[in-house]
């Protein structure tokens, strides 16, 4: 990974997305992979193509042009509006674990030179759940897209609404969808990328409202949980149920794109929809030498 975006902020603990060590065991193929190789391969298993989950920071690092990112609303967090048992403690724990203030990072940057507003949810932060802060940051990102006439790209990775905020978390579905509605009205492009997992409230709002919907291979995508469905229909579901590939076949998403090709796919889409281009400094005309 590129590491240009990582920074300590709530930095009390070391980063722990994967257990430490030189070797990592792939949870799908069970092979031991040299960790550096795995990182080089954007955390896609070189043996079986299993896509390990990424943090929001990692996602932005591998997507954006280096040092192009400017974060929005970094200090915006949820409160504990219901006085919900243990919620403040869980928030603190998530902040310590992820070095993030909340389950989404938003900002602006360039992808292969195309300017865009971008957001990435972080499943490592309370399961990427959407409370008031996640909803607010996504809505603000959409509004900035609207105001600045820039495309919007959102990577989703979420278990759904954050129940510790009760109906206020449900209202984030309305808040974010309304904000996305505005950018559609303005004819601005919105690309939604579904990563593993994208379920519940996030699917029932902004994640399924993209002009183009992309997904990573094997990502779990669905509204209701597998167990709830199996209890309801009293049958076992097939293994591929609610995978990205399943959703593609069911006509619900546009493309399944391997992580190693995602950046270029987004760049092509952004170029297609006419995102403003920022030329790299290197190819801007050099100032004439002063004699």
């Amino acid at each position, binding site marked *: 990974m590129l590491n240009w975006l990582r920074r300590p902020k709530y930095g009390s603990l070391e980063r722990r997305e994967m257990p430490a060590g030189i070797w990592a065991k792939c949870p799908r193929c069970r092979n031991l992979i040299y960790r550096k190789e795995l990182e080089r391969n954007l955390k896609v298993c070189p043996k079986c193509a299993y896509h390990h989950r990424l943090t929001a920071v990692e996602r932005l690092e591998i997507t954006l042009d280096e040092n192009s990112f400017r974060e929005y609303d970094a200090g915006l967090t949820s409160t504990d509006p219901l006085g919900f048992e243990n919620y403040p403690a869980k928030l603190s724990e998530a902040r310590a674990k992820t070095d993030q203030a909340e389950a989404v990072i938003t900002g602006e940057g360039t992808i292969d030179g195309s300017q865009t507003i971008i957001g990435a949810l972080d499943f490592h932060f309370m399961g990427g759940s959407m409370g008031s802060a996640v909803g607010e940051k996504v809505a603000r990102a959409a509004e900035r897209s609207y105001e600045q006439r820039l495309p919007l790209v959102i990577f989703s990775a979420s278990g759904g609404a954050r129940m510790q905020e009760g*109906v206020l978390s*449900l209202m984030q579905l309305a808040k974010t969808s309304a904000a996305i509605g505005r950018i559609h*009205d303005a004819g601005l492009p919105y690309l939604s990328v579904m990563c593993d997992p994208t379920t519940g409230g996030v699917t029932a709002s902004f994640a399924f409202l993209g002009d183009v919907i992309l997904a990573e291979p094997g990502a779990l995508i669905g509204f209701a949980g597998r167990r709830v469905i199996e209890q309801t229909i009293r049958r076992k579901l097939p293994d591929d149920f609610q995978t990205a590939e399943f959703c593609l076949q069911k006509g619900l998403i546009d493309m399944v794109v391997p992580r190693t090709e995602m950046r270029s796919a987004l760049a092509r889409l952004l170029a297609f929809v006419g995102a403003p281009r920022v030329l790299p400094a290197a190819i801007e005309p050099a100032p004439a030498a002063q004699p």
Partner: protein
Amino acid sequence: MTERTPSPAVDLDRQLADLEQEIERLRKRSREQSVSVDAELGPLLERADHLRVQIYTNPSPWHIVQLARQSQRPRLLDFVGTLCSDVMELHGDRLYRDDPALLAALARFEGQPVVVIGHNKGKDTKENIARNFGMPYPEGYRKALRAMRLAEKFRYPVISFVDTPGAYPGDEAEERGQAEAIARNIQEMSRLRVPLVVVITGEGGSGGALAIAVGDVVLMLQYAVYTVISPEGCAAILWHDASRARDAAEALKLTAQDLQTLGVVDEVLPEPFGGAHRDPDATFAAVREALGRHLQALREVPIEILLDRRYKKYRRMGRILEQSEQSAQSSQSPRPLAGDG
């Protein structure tokens, strides 16, 4: 509200449940052994009545959940049948199926044309099976959207009645895009160019409720509930113990009163003592009065202003904290982050 000991209200509720069990036990013994238990029974019955009054006077959230789910509670067709005239049901999403769990209709309210949508729960098992317990498939939501588009075309207001355990969690519903259907409705309702009034009459079950519950005005019956997850589901996830649903009901702040405080509900409509089913006519009258008043007011608002208000209303929902050291920078002027690599 973070304590795990039951609240006084929940406590009353449990006492009543225990008492009712005891009463039933006594009566069973009386039947089986042909003995009189009146002497023992009398004080228990009295105590139970007393408890009921206490509970109805100040019902616990869990008790309100029970009231909201009450099988005798007025249903969509009761409301529509009483409040509307000239009802013409519309069927189908023009895509896949007509979903009987969700009703869409042209109708008149106080003589004025409106489009009515609502979750169509049944009153008995037979009705409920036919209407899937008021749990729509995607095609139900798509039918609602089609009806709302008609309302938009003819510039009639939409009245939406909400009463569902949730969107149906079945494999076919997933396959046909349950999430997409809900998201689409939420987005389209946020910008539908006619007044939208929502009445939450019973269970407001998460995304399946919200899919027809975005409105300029959201009304809620006193003993209805509206929640992001069922108390049972919440308890199962949080405490791995569905029986702690009472505690979850407390914690989730799902009552009309709580939701008005949180800014999610605009007005709470009073129910008769003991619940809407004890005096349906009084309930209908309260809904009729509030609907009439709000529709009248909304009709006078120019549509662009209405849409702007609606947008801002939902835009405001939630509680956030902007940390001072960062908010000045982040909110006004995005700043580049120092990379460490």
